């Protein structure tokens, strides 16, 4: 059997298993949606390198693995330990998922404000969920995206957040997805829907974490809808375990004057692909995409972003930085698409890469597609090594060569970490980074 046919059979079997039990399918619209998406996945099959959008990332290892649907609550101890490690001390309204399933015991879903709805997606689908139907799967297109199609067909659990107009959420919402690898490769399809009403503000932290040494796949999709004048800070921290595959799409949709900033920190997994797409679908939107990817050993990390300036007077700023060591491979593929109507667009995109070893490799592909003359757009990318003059300067003051290298690597990366506004998270990541590069926190204002 060809691997395409194999994949089809495998995921068809997941689909019928899901239909039989467990996951919420009660409503006709969701059943129809799933069926359409499943059919679409069967039509598409997994992408190959002939697909321009997947040119640098070979998903054959995923296509060729026989995954089982991830099971609920496998190894609670590992999950608990992982949760403790991940959460640090920061106060948040928190939903925790283990192997894709909501774990009430580890969660504290206090509704932050009146009228705000926050729950697991499964609960939202079972409940009234009137607000779900007009939004779910309306933004993240599955027509041309096999992984989004698969997620849409098989989505089980995840998070649903609805913020009515005019609410300012002061505490972040944290969504923590822990995968505990079992003996068999398993796949989960977390799905998140966030709808932010007119003039509301929220910050959301999506964290992915792995426990155990086995192989698993997380195939996540997040849809984020920001109403007029809404402000959303989105943080994504990807720390999957060493042999994990992580494929994710974040699709953001902005109405007029909305403000969206994204911080994507990719650290884990053997193969990770993070897609972030933002559609600036109203006048005067602001969008900032920040990214940091660190990879070593045999890791492969692919960052794929697209910003659509659909309407006039939009601003976007994008800065992605990568640090690649060992034989790691990094990819930055960022497109800025300025539509015909989007005059006075102001877009800037930057990608910087630091290669720490001879074996490391980066492909960087910034792309501008502009269909309006009255715009200000720029892009640029760099690939380089540590600055020898800087290393010598530090050594000439008595700092050892290894420390000097760590310090400079840390400094390169910390610039993205410093943009994180949730202080405890910033501090925690700062420490993580410092630990990774064996430096203590040199950006610290205090010596």
């Amino acid at each position: 059997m060809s691997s395409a046919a194999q994949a089809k059979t495998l995921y068809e079997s997941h689909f019928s298993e899901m239909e039989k039990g467990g996951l919420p399918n009660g409503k006709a619209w969701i059943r129809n949606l799933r069926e359409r998406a499943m059919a679409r996945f069967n039509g598409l099959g997994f992408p190959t390198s002939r697909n321009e959008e997947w040119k640098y990332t070979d998903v054959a290892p995923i296509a060729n693995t026989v995954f089982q649907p991830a099971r609920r609550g496998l190894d609670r101890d590992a999950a608990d330990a992982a949760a403790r490690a991940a959460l640090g001390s920061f106060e948040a309204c928190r939903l925790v998922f283990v192997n894709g399933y909501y774990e009430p015991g580890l969660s504290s879903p206090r509704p932050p404000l009146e009228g705000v709805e926050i729950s697991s997606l499964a609960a939202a689908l079972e409940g009234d969920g009137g607000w779900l139907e007009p939004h779910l799967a309306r933004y993240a297109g599955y027509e041309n995206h096999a992984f989004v199609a698969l997620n849409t067909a098989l989505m089980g659990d995840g998070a649903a957040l609805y913020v009515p107009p005019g609410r300012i959420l002061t505490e972040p919402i944290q969504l923590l997805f822990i995968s505990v690898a079992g003996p068999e490769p398993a796949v989960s399809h977390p799905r998140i829907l966030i709808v932010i009403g007119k003039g509301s503000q929220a910050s959301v932290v999506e964290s992915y974490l792995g426990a155990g040494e086995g192989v698993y796949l997380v195939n996540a999709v997040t849809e984020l809808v920001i109403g007029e004048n809404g402000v959303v800070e989105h943080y994504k921290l990807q720390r999957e375990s060493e042999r994990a595959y992580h494929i994710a799409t974040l699709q953001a949709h902005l109405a007029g004057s909305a403000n969206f900033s994204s911080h994507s920190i990719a650290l884990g997994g053997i193969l990770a692909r993070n897609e972030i797409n933002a559609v600036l679908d109203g006048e005067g939107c602001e969008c900032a995409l920040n990214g940091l990817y660190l990879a070593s050993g045999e890791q492969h990390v692919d960052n794929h972003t697209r910003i659509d300036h659909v309407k006039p007077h939009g601003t976007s700023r994008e800065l992605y930085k990568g640090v690649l060591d060992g034989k790691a491979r990094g990819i930055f593929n960022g497109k800025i698409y300025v539509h015909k109507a989007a005059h006075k667009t102001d877009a800037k995109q930057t990608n910087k890469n630091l290669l720490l070893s001879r074996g490391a490799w980066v492909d960087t592909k910034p792309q501008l597609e502009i269909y309006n003359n009255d715009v200000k757009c720029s892009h640029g990318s760099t690939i380089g090594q540590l600055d020898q003059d800087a290393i010598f300067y530090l050594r000439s003051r008595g700092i050892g060569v290894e420390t000097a290298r760590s310090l400079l690597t840390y400094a390169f990366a910390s610039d993205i970490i410093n943009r994180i506004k949730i202080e405890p998270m910033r501090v925690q990541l700062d420490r993580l980074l410092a630990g990774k590069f064996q430096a203590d926190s040199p950006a610290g204002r205090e010596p």
Partner: protein
Amino acid sequence: MLQIRNLHAKVADSEILRGIGLTVKAGEVHAIMGPNGSGKSTLAHVLSGRENYQVTAGEVTFQGRDLLQMIPEERAREGIFLAFQYPVEIPGVSTTYFLKAALNAVRKHRDLPELDAMDFLALIKEKMKVVEMDQGLLNRPINEGFSGGEKKRNEIFQMAVLDPKLAILDETDSGLDIDALRIVANGVNALRSAERAMIVITHYQRLLGYIVPDYVHVLFDGRIVKSGDKRLALELEEKGYAWIEDEQEKAQRAGA
């Protein structure tokens, strides 16, 4: 303290230092002057261990030890300090953090206890006065966006903190206005002591009016071609380097 014998060095396959000899004793201040490209900075970098300069002959001992065998950080810990002609900007690393790491590396090497944050801050406060350094600069990343004068001051400030045995100042005076020059020179003078030696590289007599050297050497085409006391600097100021060049040519012809 420092003995240089017949030092030859090349960079990118061309020989820049062509037989340098120099002896510096504790407490002494030596000025090295010479035209652009004569090898002054090369000498300074070779002494601090910069890797892309290749020593092809000669020897250097520092406090009785073979300096050329030491890696740059070891030289620094042993007490060599280079004030760079072009200090490097290092975004993302705060000056205070960097200096604390450097100082503790040096102290550890000298079997002194590491300083904690409190003691370190106290030391910094005291040393800041030496060059009228502004606290604001210290919180910024190393040299990032500093003016030329601020960078040079930062070099002398670091020297004050690290307390070296041999300081090599590479054109610390260049690009300074008269006030900044006075501040830097006062800083350097405050650090003069019987235990510390200094090599001051400069183009101008102007600095030597403040920092009075015990010896003045002229570096020309990779060799020290003339040595004297402070009067030599005045003579150079007056006549420029042309007469040295003439003398060299004459000597060469006589030799040929």
